């Protein structure tokens, strides 16, 4: 990996930060670490990860889910992905990248008054589809988006 470039990225990130460190040490999260699904995130196979987090690998394709991601990602370490679900009562959104060492990237539990809309940045080892599985009203729906990665983001 190009070290200079790394340093530059880190530095530019830090420069953009407002001084917010002061409050961080004083506030203790009240009820975190409740139910992080360790097995799902540590699974190295896509179907295992899916079964652990959503219980099944089967889902219906849906046009009401939009996965927004760049067609070509220059840097696989930072791929911005937006999932928009127009399905009412969206309960959860899970993101999978089949080519990654750990296929499950992120899973979101969505409260009743929250939109089916989440943006995150994920890592991608190489060119692949990004799958979004949406659970709504007890049913599963999916959508995907192909992302071409020119520089892998897992390892180096």
């Amino acid at each position, binding site marked *: 990996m190009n070290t200079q470039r790394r340093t530059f990225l880190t530095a530019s990130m830090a420069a953009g*930060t407002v001084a917010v460190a002061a*409050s961080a040490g004083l506030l203790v999260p009240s*009820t975190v670490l409740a139910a992080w*699904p360790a097995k799902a995130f540590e699974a190295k196979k896509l179907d295992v990860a899916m079964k652990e987090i959503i219980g099944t690998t089967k889902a219906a394709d849906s046009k009401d889910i939009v996965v927004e991601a760049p067609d070509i990602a220059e840097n696989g370490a930072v791929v911005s992905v937006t999932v928009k679900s127009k399905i009412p009562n969206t309960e959860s959104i899970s993101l999978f990248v089949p080519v990654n060492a750990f296929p499950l990237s992120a899973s979101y*539990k969505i409260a009743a*008054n929250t939109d089916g809309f989440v943006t995150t*940045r994920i890592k991608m080892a190489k060119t692949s589809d990004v799958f979004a599985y949406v659970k709504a009203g007890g049913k599963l729906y999916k959508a995907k988006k192909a992302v071409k990665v020119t520089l892998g983001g897992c390892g180096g």
Partner: protein
Amino acid sequence: MAKKKMKIRAWVDGGKATVKAIIFHPMETGLRKDKASGKKIPPHYITEVKCEHNGKSVLTCYWGPGVSKNPFVSFRFKGAKSGDNLKISWVDNTGDKGSKEAKIG
């Protein structure tokens, strides 16, 4: 405690609040090797993030090592007004944690 930083932006537009947050965290996968020593860098990543609006949970994120360094998250929810409290707290796989509160603008 190491310097832990988080940036939160939240505003109301048309009855919905939009939240954007960045947590500064290395998000090591545990697969990468240290170039100098050749040893594996131990995994260090955020596992769970809770977003609360006036004490009520609006979004829970479960993250794995596949989320980028300095993770960013954006979401929207209904029923917020200007001046409301928004709290985001996280915990990582080493048991480290942090949180920050912000006012919705």
